[in-house]
């Protein structure tokens, strides 16, 4: 018996120019905040942008964006609804507010299902918000999505970088493109992370300070884009993505 889904994934993503996985290995470093804000920043530049929340058991981007009661349309597949100018896809459309306990094999299956039926159309960027851990979701997008690029997020903490460093090493070993590393929630001016990153030959995008006001903007993208956090992220994007 052959599962026909895997064969069609390349087809489904054919119209997407760049796929960027915002990743870390570590949890709570700001992946979801950065993925959401990055997608909004690119969309406000007039680019065609999609955002795909791949953290199925602890999704967060729907809260950050303040996504209301939407449901994807069915039209020769699934069309991701438009949210604040983005094509937005999340499992929460289907799991609603319920707890969704999924084993790795189920995460893998749900990911393949969504990749094989979602019609992203033509996009300049598809931003993928990754779950923590070096497990099914990370291994699957690596094997399923050709040309995928990683944007890695860490905090200044040694506890975060312990895992982030290992994850980077794996990507480098597998010859997968790393766009760069962002040091988020910076509170001192240690250069430890920058040295570690550049020492491995990876581009250090820069840091984003800890922003006490960020929390209040959850659910309000206009206010989010006015924060120091978003402004600093935009600077890093302008400088490092060259668009």
């Amino acid at each position, binding site marked *: *018996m*052959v*599962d*026909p*889904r*895997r*064969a*069609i994934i390349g*087809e*489904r993503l054919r119209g997407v120019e760049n796929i960027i996985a915002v990743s870390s290995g570590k949890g709570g470093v700001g992946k979801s905040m950065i993925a959401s804000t990055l997608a909004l920043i690119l969309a406000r530049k007039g680019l065609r942008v999609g955002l795909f929340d791949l953290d*199925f058991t602890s999704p967060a981007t729907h809260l950050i964006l303040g996504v209301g009661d939407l449901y*994807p349309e*069915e*039209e*020769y*597949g*699934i069309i991701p609804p438009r949210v604040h100018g983005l094509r937005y896809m999340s*499992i929460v*459309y*289907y*799991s*609603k507010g*319920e*707890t*969704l*306990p*999924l*084993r790795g094999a*189920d*995460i893998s*299956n*749900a990911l393949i*299902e*969504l990749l*094989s*039926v979602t*019609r992203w159309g033509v996009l300049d960027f598809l931003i993928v918000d990754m779950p923590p851990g070096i497990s099914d979701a990370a291994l699957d997008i690596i094997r399923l999505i050709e040309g995928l690029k990683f944007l890695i997020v860490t905090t200044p903490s040694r506890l975060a970088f312990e895992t982030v460093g290992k994850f980077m090493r794996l990507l480098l070993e597998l010859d997968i493109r790393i766009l760069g590393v962002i040091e988020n929630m910076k509170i001192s001016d240690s250069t430890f992370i920058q040295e570690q990153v550049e020492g491995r030959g990876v581009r250090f995008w820069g840091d984003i300070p800890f922003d006490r006001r960020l929390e209040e903007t959850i659910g309000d993208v206009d206010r989010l884009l006015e924060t120091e956090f978003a402004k600093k992220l935009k600077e890093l994007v302008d400088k490092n993505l060259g668009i």
Partner: protein
Amino acid sequence: MHEWSLAEAVIHAASKIVEREGLKEVREVVIRVGELQQIELEVLEFALTELKKGTRFEDAEFVLETMRAEFECRVCGHRWYFDAKELDERVQEDIHFVPEVVHAYVRCPRCGSPDFNVLKGRGVWIERIRGLR
């Protein structure tokens, strides 16, 4: 109508198999459809009929077989069959698109756990392809 995209996946994957196996003429493609997803068979069939036009499958027959969805609890070992009618329509639709969300809505009838395995009846599979070499 996301059955259409599943049909596309079937045609796409079947083409690769036909090429790999070096088949010249395809007679029959047997598709197994798990009942968990509550796929509309007529819609899937219609999509396959439309999509095969002008392809190497033009003269092939697509045979759809369904398979009941069976679960096995990882906690207590209980096995049971999925019954869509016990769920409300909106939830059925959610499972239609992403079968794994069944873990948000269904519990083991014996011990109440959401930690169960889908033993069979998930997804759409190409069971076999008959043709001439």
